[in-house]
């Protein structure tokens, strides 16, 4: 009954607060917006219904996260209000029991949070019903979907949140701690999901750790097919069930602990004993006595005398204002710096920076800790981007409310501090905190570098990155946060509004606002590269920041004018005060700021929208759709093919300008005469002077859509050729709203000519690809990739796949080396310019890049091939490794697959982060990021960059010689074969254990989270299939069939298609060649690997060993096996089998290294369980079925098992290393 009364009263209190209603109205609206914008789009691109249970669950969890703020307010208030309002003495002396009190309060908070979770779903419901969606998106609408999401996620999350927050407030007797715990819960979600699961790969752990279950949903989202997502409900079993159980239990325990610890006694006394502080400390009678004696003992001082001292010491001038502002800033800073939340933040930052080496590993390989990497690290979007903004919001609220929270505001408000100085002091204080945080990052960064033995500290770069670039953003946001808090004048509502604004800023793009003039503090982006510096991004960046700084000043004036000072906080008084505060001087300042906003904004607009065309994403989609609508009818029309290209490229790196004079030789390879030639001109450059060497009438010139057509007279006969001259000019004026085109840079020019030069015929790659987008623009649906069975595609040679003879002259400024495909024929100087002429010996695939920079060149040789590593002077770490890998690869591939057709092979560096490489004919491009791999030395360390280089060199065969038709399964012939080849090089160079380490590393990215629904390999196009499943399938085949036979099949395939005839190969050709070398007994395996999406699930369930005399051992395994075929919709079918599996028995491993097998042979294994017995010559340590995990098995950890001590007559155990193999 008393519980009920407490509950009723508490609920009433909360319902009478404006903030409560704000949450209950704001949150559904926010969810509605989010659901309409983000999730409908997600469903559209993902190809499933918006009513998908998975999507509903995801939105519910997002709602739980967004509700944290409200939950903090509810729970904090319910648990700590009495302590904070000092009602406790009255309350605790009533006959009300502690349990009734706590139960009532907690239930009230829980009710509100549970109701909020309903409000979330209401928002989603409104979003889904209030607008009409295209039929493909709206699936069956089931009430149960909502109910399930609520019961599985909404309600449990509300309980977990309420319990944790309530307990925190109860223990500390302060409601503000709930905000911090909210942040911790939020951080836990992100850390579980992004760090533990996605980045480190511990999906199981991440799923359990995540308090809200988002990681589980993310896992399902990666695993399920669109069809499954559309209809399947979230199964409450396994990890999810465990997660829910663990968190409900944990939060109940926390709550229970807090309830027990919570004494139903006075807060102040208890707090004082524990040395805790409470906001306002009040005296009790006992301590008064001590003070009185002090007073009595003190000799009275003549008051007048003492006061005389203070008569004329206050001065009021500009210096006073500055010093007052400084005092406020310092006080604010100190308040934060000494608070435990401040220390927590510092500790968190230091921890994160120190954890850098682990987090920045890629494929088990360390990266060089360059300054650029370290400064960017905390800004890395997927990891912890929200830490600093979140703390900024929190501290902005604390600083604005500091005086009022401590109720010292009457004292401070009556000091002669100008209103402006009060505001400026707060902003400065927050700024000071941010400066200190950046300084800590700087020191921690240098510490990390030193610890890793990297001594190139680049303090100047640290200062520019941390204080020049990032701090500007932080400060702009800090100003916004303070201003909002001042204007809103309600702490929690203020937090909510700032976070909302932050969300709008961050997701403005997906909400359809793309212009940086309209999104607070935004800019076109800035990237630093050691080669290129901040160019060419710095200029636009600074213009935008200047513009937003002017805005920030306007906001500050606004806040200064409307700031509350004194007791009156109603709108009328604030307006009245505002009028008085707008002094003429302030008016002038505000006018200047507004004028600056106008001028800077105007200048930027002139650059982004007048000098350059401003195109939103929607505009670009519309452009693509319109291109297809206008010229789609020319798709497949016979066109001549590019045969030879001659270019003269003039680079002006300092001005970011370039001109290209080019000549194409076009040949009619069709059987029909061609009278109309369609030329697609690129949009990044201006193309002019198109001229044929025979009469050609321009039929059409459409510059907007980059399409021209010419009528040839006479028509081009089959086998005949025609010359086409053209000029291309790249000369950007001003700057653009989007990312700046950095292809021509003062140092580090990298131009992919395909983006600049004209192409022949209708360009299919300009078409809109996404199913949803095509539907939106009324275009016919088509598969994203042409079908494997599409035989017409085999003869359709798209732009970039032609074979051309190339002759190119590149002119650049003296001091830079220009690089192009082919051999360097000639170098000469003309004035201050240097020219390089390159020409190819044999035709190359039309994939040409031009480089120019101040390079260092490492020359090496392999037989008649000149190897060059053309690199940035700093990036020397991997040069030797690259040379070794290229040499080893050339040796291995020429022996196995066929000759290398060129006399040069270069690896050329270009600016940019990331470690993707591109293997164009002759020249392999790698980014600066790849040069940062630092595998270290030692035999056990995986040399990942070595393998990557081998992979890229392999592309000179698989991709540049063997160019597949652009149909499904095409990347199997390039990426999968390149990895398969690289595995061979790694094994040949470093030995089998090193290859095993590489495979293990590759497998870790592959098996988690097991993406099972997929097409067979011959039709695969997704990353996982072509970079992982494909290479593993090839490797398994090699181990079953034999390396020489598999390689022989590849050699045959290459011989048939390697020179780029009219017919392009597909994955079926690969399968056919492999079938030719596979014995009939293993034909099933080839088909399982390539034609069916097969998984094997084998496990060793029990092992025993006994002595068999002569020191031999008889080992008995109980194994379980299963084979499953999974189709692309995710439906699984058990296939009965009697397949070959390796059975292995291993001895004890030597101290360093792996155990040699005592026995490794293939056995036939049926579906189900069976017993296998083998005899080995030594004591076995571990035993397994498919111990090397050659076959695709979602769970490889149960394949092997340790052997228990052998039964039988006792004898001295054999401890030495195994001496022989069973095979």
């Amino acid at each position, binding site marked *: 009954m008393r519980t009920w009364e407490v509950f009723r009263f508490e609920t009433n209190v909360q319902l009478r607060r404006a903030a409560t209603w704000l949450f209950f109205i704001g949150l559904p609206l926010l969810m509605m917006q989010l659901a309409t914008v983000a999730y409908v789009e997600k469903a559209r691109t993902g190809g499933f219904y918006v009513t998908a249970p998975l999507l509903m669950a995801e939105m519910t969890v997002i709602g739980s996260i967004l509700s944290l703020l409200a939950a903090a307010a509810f729970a904090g208030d319910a648990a700590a209000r009495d302590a904070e309002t000092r009602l406790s003495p009255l309350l605790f002396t009533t006959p009300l029991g502690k349990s009734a009190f706590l139960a009532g309060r907690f239930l009230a908070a829980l009710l509100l949070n549970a109701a909020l979770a309903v409000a979330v779903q209401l928002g989603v419901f409104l979003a889904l019903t209030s607008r009409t969606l295209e039929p493909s998106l709206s699936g069956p609408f089931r009430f149960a979907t909502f109910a399930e999401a609520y019961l599985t996620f909404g309600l449990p999350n509300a309980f977990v949140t309420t319990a944790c927050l309530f307990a925190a407030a109860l223990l500390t007797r302060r409601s503000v701690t709930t905000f911090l715990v909210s942040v911790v819960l939020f951080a836990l979600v992100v850390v579980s999901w992004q760090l533990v699961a996605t980045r480190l790969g511990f999906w199981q752990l991440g799923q359990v750790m995540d308090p809200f279950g988002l990681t589980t949903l993310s896992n399902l989202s990666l695993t399920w097919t669109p069809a499954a997502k559309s209809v399947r409900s979230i199964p409450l079993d396994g990890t999810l069930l465990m997660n829910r159980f663990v968190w409900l239990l944990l939060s109940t325990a926390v709550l229970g602990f807090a309830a027990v610890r919570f004494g139903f006694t006075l807060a102040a006394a208890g707090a004082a004993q524990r040395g805790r502080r409470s906001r306002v400390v009040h005296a009790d009678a006992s301590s008064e006595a001590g003070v009185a004696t002090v007073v009595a003992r003190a000799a009275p001082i003549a008051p007048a005398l003492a006061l005389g001292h203070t008569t004329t010491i*206050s001065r009021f001038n500009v210096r006073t204002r500055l010093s007052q502002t400084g005092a406020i800033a310092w006080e604010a800073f100190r308040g934060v710096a000494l608070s435990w939340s401040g220390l927590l933040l510092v500790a968190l930052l230091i921890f994160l920076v120190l954890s850098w080496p682990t987090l920045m590993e890629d494929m088990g390989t360390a990266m060089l800790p360059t300054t650029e990497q370290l400064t960017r690290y905390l800004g890395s979007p997927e990891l912890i981007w929200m830490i600093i903004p979140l703390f900024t919001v929190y501290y902005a609220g604390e600083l604005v409310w500091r005086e009022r929270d*401590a*109720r010292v505001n009457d004292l*401070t408000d009556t000091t002669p501090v100008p209103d402006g100085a009060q505001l400026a002091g707060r902003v400065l204080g927050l700024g000071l905190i941010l400066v200190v945080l950046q300084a800590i990052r700087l020191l921690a960064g240098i510490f990390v570098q030193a610890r890793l033995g990297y001594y190139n500290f680049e303090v100047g770069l640290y200062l520019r990155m941390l204080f020049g670039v990032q701090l500007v953003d932080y400060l702009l946001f800090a100003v916004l946060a303070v201003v909002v808090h001042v204007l809103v004048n309600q702490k929690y509502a203020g937090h909510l509004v700032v976070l909302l604004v932050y969300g709008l800023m961050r997701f403005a793009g997906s909400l359809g606002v793309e212009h940086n003039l309209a999104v607070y503090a935004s800019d076109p982006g800035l990237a630093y590269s050691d080669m290129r510096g901040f160019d060419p991004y710095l200029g636009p960046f600074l213009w935008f920041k200047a513009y937003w700084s002017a805005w920030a000043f306007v906001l500050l004036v606004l806040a200064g004018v409307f700031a509350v000072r004194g007791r009156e906080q109603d709108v009328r008084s604030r307006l009245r005060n505002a009028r008085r505060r707008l002094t003429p001087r302030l008016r002038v300042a505000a006018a200047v700021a507004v004028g600056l906003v106008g001028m800077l904004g105007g200048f930027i607009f002139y650059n982004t929208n007048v000098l350059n065309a401003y195109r939103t994403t929607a505009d670009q989609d519309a452009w693509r759709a319109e291109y297809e609508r206008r010229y789609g009818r020319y798709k497949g029309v016979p066109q001549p093919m590019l045969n030879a290209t001659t270019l003269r490229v003039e680079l002006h790196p300092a001005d970011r300008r370039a001109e290209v004079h080019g000549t194409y030789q076009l040949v009619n390879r069709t059987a029909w005469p061609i009278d109309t030639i369609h030329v697609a001109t690129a949009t990044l450059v201006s193309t002019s002077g198109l001229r044929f060497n025979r009469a050609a009438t321009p039929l059409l010139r459409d510059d907007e859509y980059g399409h021209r057509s010419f009528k040839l007279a006479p028509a081009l006969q089959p086998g005949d050729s025609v010359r086409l001259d053209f000029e291309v000019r790249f000369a950007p004026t001003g700057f653009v709203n989007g990312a700046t085109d950095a292809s021509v840079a003062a140092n580090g020019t990298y131009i992919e000519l395909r983006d600049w030069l004209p192409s022949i015929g209708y360009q299919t790659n300009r078409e809109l690809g996404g199913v949803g987008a095509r539907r939106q623009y009324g275009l016919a649906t088509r598969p994203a990739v042409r079908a494997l069975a599409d035989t017409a595609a085999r003869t359709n040679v798209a732009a970039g796949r032609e074979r051309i003879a190339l002759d190119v002259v590149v002119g650049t400024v003296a001091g830079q080396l220009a690089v192009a495909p082919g051999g360097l024929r000639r170098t000469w100087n003309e004035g201050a310019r240097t020219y390089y002429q390159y020409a190819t010996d044999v035709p190359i695939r039309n994939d040409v890049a031009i480089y120019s920079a101040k390079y260092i060149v490492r020359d090496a040789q392999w037989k008649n091939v000149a190897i060059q590593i053309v690199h940035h002077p700093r990036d020397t770490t991997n040069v030797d490794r690259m040379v070794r890998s290229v040499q080893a690869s050339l040796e291995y591939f020429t022996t196995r697959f066929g000759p290398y057709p060129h006399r040069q092979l270069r690896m050329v560096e270009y600016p940019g982060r990331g470690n993707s490489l591109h293997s164009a004919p002759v020249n392999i491009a790698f980014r600066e990021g790849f040069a940062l791999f630092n595998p270290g030395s030692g035999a056990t360390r995986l040399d990942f960059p070595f393998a990557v280089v081998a992979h890229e060199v392999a592309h000179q065969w698989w991709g540049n010689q063997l160019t597949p038709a652009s149909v499904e399964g095409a990347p199997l012939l390039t990426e999968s074969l390149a990895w398969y080849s690289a595995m061979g090089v790694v094994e040949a160079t470093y030995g089998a254990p090193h290859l095993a380490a590489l495979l293990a590393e590759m497998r870790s990215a592959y098996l988690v989270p097991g993406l099972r629904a997929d097409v067979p390999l011959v039709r695969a196009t997704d990353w996982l299939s072509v970079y992982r499943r494909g290479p593993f399938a090839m490797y398994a085949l090699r181990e079953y069939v034999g390396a020489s036979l598999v390689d022989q099949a590849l050699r045959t395939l290459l011989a048939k298609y390697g020179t780029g005839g009219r017919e392009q190969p597909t994955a079926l050709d690969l399968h056919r060649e492999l079938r030719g070398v596979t014995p009939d007994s293993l034909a099933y395996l080839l088909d399982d690997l390539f034609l069916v999406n097969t998984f094997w699930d084998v496990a060793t369930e029990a092992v025993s060993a006994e002595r068999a005399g002569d020191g031999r051992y008889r080992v008995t395994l109980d194994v379980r096996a299963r084979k499953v075929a999974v189709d692309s919709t995710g439906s699984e079918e058990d296939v009965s089998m009697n397949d070959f599996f390796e059975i292995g028995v291993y001895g004890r491993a030597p101290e360093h290294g792996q155990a040699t097998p005592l026995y490794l042979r293939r056995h036939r294994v049926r579906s189900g369980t069976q017993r296998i017995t083998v005899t080995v010559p030594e004591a076995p340590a571990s035993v397994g079925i498919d111990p090397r995990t050659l076959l695709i098995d979602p769970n490889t950890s149960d394949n092997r098992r340790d052997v228990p001590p052998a039964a039988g007559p006792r004898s001295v155990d054999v401890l030495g290393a195994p001496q022989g193999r069973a095979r």
Partner: protein
Amino acid sequence: MELRIRNVSKRYPNGVQALTDVTLTIPIGMYGLLGPNGAGKSSLMRTLATLQEPDEGSITLGEIDVLRQKDELRKTLGYLPQEFGLYPNVSAEDLLSHFAALEGITRRRLRKSTVESLLRQVNLWDVRKKRLGGYSGGMRQRFGIAVALLGNPKLLIVDEPTAGLDPVERVRFLNLLSALGEQSVVILSTHIVEDVSELCTRMAVIDRGRILLEAEPLEAVAALRGRIWRKVVDKTELPEVEAKYAVISTRLLAGRTVVHVYSLATPGPGFDSVAADLEDVYFSIMTGHFGAQTEASAVVA
């Protein structure tokens, strides 16, 4: 220099009429503002301290228009609110130094010596390094006084200052105030009559937002001479006495009740004439027998 309050009225947004047509002239010296809880004392004090604005009326301190030149006033204002908090994890010395900076004492040396002298004066010097969170109510009150005294205020407003102080502290504090009152306008709001009678040269009585009396305490007491009568009665007689006479106060004494009655002539048998004190003045005003509406003009003249 004097503080002139003219026709000040204030109604809060929730409808409470806090001040009605308050007009006062307050010269240099100690000035007592006496009134029961909720009379509008704090509203008036806060208005004087620039923390809120009246709906009507004007307030000037010498040349300073208090309502328009808030920053000017704040330079010479000392204010001790009735209720306030302090940052718990800061020491007294640090926080007072912070306030000194806010008060415009920019020179570090001066700030240091000012802080020291004030802390000694309010007897907190020995505990200056202690966190304010550990201060007792009396210590906090004394700290607030130090803050109010910073920067040599010409106008010192102290709202119920003696509430948390023990007798010794109270005396010390009041002495301090009266010393300050020699050069400044010091307004002391209180509901304790003794505070006013001991110190203030002038006083006003306020109730329900209206000034009921503005006078010098001694004169007010003098004006009551011969009009206060005392009788000791039984509890049972009390209703009868109250109905019959203008009772201004009752007090228990050894189980019986002492009744003070206001009357121009002797009210009857059993009543003794007593020498009126300020308390009697206050109670006479509160019960409506004496003050602005009745004879205030006569007394003030």
